[in-house]
């Protein structure tokens, strides 16, 4: 099922999402959420809204990936 909301040209890829959060394909979802929380909070305090957005989009993207992995369609 394609998520039709995202415009193709501006979608974040899984690879970039992992790079943004600094995680590998072996990283567990719990670890990813931890990294996300830290990065999101740090950027909320001292970073830019733009970077916060990217961190958020990265997590969103990986959430889809991990969710589709755990529920085989």
């Amino acid at each position, binding site marked *: 099922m394609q998520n039709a909301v995202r415009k193709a040209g*501006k979608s974040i890829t899984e690879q*970039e999402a992992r790079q*943004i959060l*600094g995680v590998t394909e072996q990283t567990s979802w719990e670890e990813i959420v931890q990294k996300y929380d*830290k990065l999101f909070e740090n950027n909320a305090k*001292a970073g830019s809204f733009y*970077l*916060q957005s990217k961190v958020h*989009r990265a997590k969103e993207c990986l959430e889809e990936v991990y969710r589709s992995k755990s529920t085989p369609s």
Partner: protein
Amino acid sequence: MVAGAAVAAAALAGRYGILAWQAFKARPPAARMRRFYEGGFQTAMTRREAALILGVRERVVAEKVKEAHRRVMVANHPDAGGSHYLASKINEAKDILLGKSNNSGSAF
């Protein structure tokens, strides 16, 4: 007599108008949720994206760029849980803004 009634009506409307305006101004500030930017980073970083990354305006003096760079880098430092990818983006943003900021009004 009609003119009198019209004046009274106008006065009432005016009064309610003022009351409504005061209530509007005094309402508790609602936290406004900004929409997150879509997608990942651009394939080739533009000046606009660089400015967004550092949270500065596009035409900004070098001093501000360095200041913003320091601040944002601290929040995303790899040693403190940040990612190398973001750190490199932040550095790239600084380079772009410093490289082309000749006519941004910096006083030499």
